[in-house]
């Protein structure tokens, strides 16, 4: 009973928030609605008993990722309206067909997977965080370390890209100007 009420309440809230995100014309409203939706998503993780994942969702998504987006938004002139016109009809029809096939596959998946056996079954009498830690540092240690290195590389790449001097654009110059730029660089 309690679980059902919580599920329907948070499902309604999450869908509403994400719907606002994709339909609003204001980037700031989209950001706020997305952050709220992320917090409501973590409620599903808590209902499903994945406490550690719920905590990570709140800390990483609504804490780090949303802060990064808010920081990035300061660079852009988001008050200016971006023209929203409809793209190619065939692409939209194709992607909609793909989405319909995906829905059918998702509904069929629990029926064809009746006799699945858990590879790493949940341990009795142990908290979720301890279970996750046990599996993460035994079976998934190498992917975990690779993910750590990937995050480091992504962080360095982000800093290098954002800190770059971008006062001249080679793509918008013609050949003579690029040649002249190269000559002055050699001389100086």
């Amino acid at each position, binding site marked *: *009973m309690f*679980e*059902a009420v919580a599920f329907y309440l948070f499902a309604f809230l999450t*869908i509403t928030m*994400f719907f606002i*995100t*994709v339909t609003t014309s204001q*980037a700031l409203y*989209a*950001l706020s609605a*997305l952050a709220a939706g*992320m917090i409501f*998503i973590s409620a*599903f993780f808590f209902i*499903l008993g*994945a406490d550690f*994942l719920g905590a*990570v*969702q709140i800390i990483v*998504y609504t804490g780090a*990722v949303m802060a*990064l*987006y808010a920081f*990035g*938004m300061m*660079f*852009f*002139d*988001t008050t200016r309206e*971006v*023209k*929203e*016109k409809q793209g190619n009809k065939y692409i*939209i029809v194709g*992607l909609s067909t793909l*989405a319909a096939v*995906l829905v059918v596959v*998702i*509904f069929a998946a*629990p029926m064809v997977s009746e006799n*699945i056996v*858990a*590879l790493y079954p*949940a341990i009795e009498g142990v908290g979720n965080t301890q279970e*996750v830690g046990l*599996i*993460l540092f035994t079976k*998934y240690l190498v992917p975990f370390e690779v*993910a750590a290195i*990937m*995050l480091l590389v*992504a*962080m360095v*790449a*982000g800093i290098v*890209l*954002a800190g770059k001097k*971008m006062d001249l*654009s080679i*793509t918008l110059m013609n050949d003579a100007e690029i040649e002249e730029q190269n000559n002055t660089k050699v001389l100086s």
Partner: protein
Amino acid sequence: MMEIGLNHYLVLSTILFAIGLVGVMRRKNLLLLFFATEILLNAVNVAFAAISHYYGDLTGQMFAFFVIAIAASEVAVGLGLLIVWYKRHSSIDLDALTAMKG
């Protein structure tokens, strides 16, 4: 009706994924396109956690954990690229992104 099963969570995940897909298809603002991508990743995470719970297997939670790590690094690199693009062209309109057009 009152018993919440795996199907409920899969339907919810599908709805959220469809919302994200609509966002990716229709938006022309690159920043909002990034938001729609985050919705797609979150929809997948809900499905992973639900399957992990109903089959009593922790692998789903591991994958959701790695998806969050991937999303975080995607934001770091993507936002850096977006800032570079905005510095050059002073616009984040997707239709203006024609520099690599053949």
